[in-house]
C-alpha cells in the first residue's frame, strides 16, 4: 500500500512535466533504481528529475520525501520490505533538512552499517555552513554539493552529478 503510494507520487512528480515518459517511470522496477533522490521540496524534485532526464537517467530515479522513507528504502524495511537490501542504488542524493529523520541521521545510519556503507552518498543541500560540511565528511559522505540558487546552474549541477555518479564512478556491485 505504502509502496503504491510512493510509486503514485513518483508518477505524479514525473508527470508534472509532459516531456517525461510516464510509462518509463512506471516500468522502473525497484531493483533497477540507480539514483535514490531524498528531497522534500517538490520544486527541487521536479528540477532534479528534469536535469537527469537530459542525461537519460530519469527513468532510473526513485524519489522519497523524507528521511524515514529513505531509510526504509535503503534497509529494505517497512513499505520497502519486499526490496532486496543488496540491490543498492549507485548513488543517494540526500538533502539535509528533511521531515521525520534529517539528512545527517540518514547518512550516519547508512555509513554505520556494513551492508550499506559502500553506497555513495552525495549531500545536495542549500546549506553552506562549514559545520554541516565538516560533520558530513566526518560521517563519511562521498561528496557535498551546495544547490545553486540560479535555475540553470541548478540544472547544470545536477546533470554533472548524474553523469559523475551514474556513469563515471565505479561501485562494487
Amino acid at each position, binding site marked *: 500500500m505504502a509502496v503504491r503510494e510512493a510509486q503514485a507520487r513518483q508518477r505524479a512528480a514525473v508527470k508534472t512535466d509532459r516531456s517525461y515518459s510516464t510509462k518509463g517511470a512506471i516500468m522502473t522496477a525497484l531493483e533497477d533504481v540507480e539514483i535514490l533522490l531524498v528531497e522534500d521540496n517538490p520544486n527541487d524534485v521536479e528540477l532534479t528529475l528534469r536535469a537527469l532526464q537530459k542525461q537519460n537517467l530519469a527513468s532510473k530515479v526513485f524519489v522519497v520525501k523524507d528521511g524515514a522513507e529513505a531509510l526504509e528504502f535503503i534497509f529494505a524495511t517497512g513499505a520497502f520490505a519486499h526490496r532486496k537490501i543488496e540491490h543498492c542504488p549507485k548513488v543517494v542524493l540526500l538533502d539535509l533538512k528533511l521531515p521525520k529523520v534529517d539528512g545527517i541521521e540518514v547518512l550516519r545510519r547508512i555509513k554505520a552499517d556494513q551492508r550499506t556503507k559502500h553506497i555513495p552518498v552525495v549531500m545536495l543541500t542549500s546549506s*553552506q555552513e562549514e559545520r554541516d560540511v565538516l560533520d558530513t565528511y566526518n560521517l563519511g559522505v562521498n*561528496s557535498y554539493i551546495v544547490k545553486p540558487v540560479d535555475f540553470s546552474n541548478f540544472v547544470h549541477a545536477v546533470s554533472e552529478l548524474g553523469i559523475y555518479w551514474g556513469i563515471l*564512478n565505479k561501485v562494487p556491485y
Partner: protein
Amino acid sequence: MSEPETVEILLVEDNPNDAELTQRALKKTNLGVGLATVRDGAEALEYLFSNRPKPKVIFLDLKLPKIDGIEVLRRVRADDRLRSVPVVVLTSSQEERDISQCYKLGVNSYIVKPVEFDEFYKAVGDLATYWLVLNKSPL
C-alpha cells in the same frame, strides 16, 4: 616533487606517462589548478602528515612503490586531521576486491582509468571540474 604555492590536488602516481597526461589535462581545464605530484605512497604520507595545508582532493593510484594506495587511504581515514579530505582512487584496477576494499575504507569515489588516451584526458578534466568546482571540500 613539483609544488605550487596553493595545492588543490595532490596526485599520487608512479607512472610518469599517466602523471604527465594528468598534468596536461588539468592545465587544459583552465581552472588554474594547483597540483602537487608525488611518486609513491611513502612520499604521499610524508606530504599529508607534514604541516602543509590540506589539498581539496587527493587523486590516488592503487599500485604504488613502497606503500600502496590502499594503505595510504587507510592511514588518511584513521587520522583525525585528514579524515575529511576527499580521496578519489584513480586506477587501472577493475578488480572487485580493490573496489570493495576502497569503499570499506571510506574512499569518496573510485574511477577506473580509461585505457584510451582521449578518454583518459577527458576523464581527468571531468574529475577536476567535479571535485574543485562542483564539490564543496571541508576546509
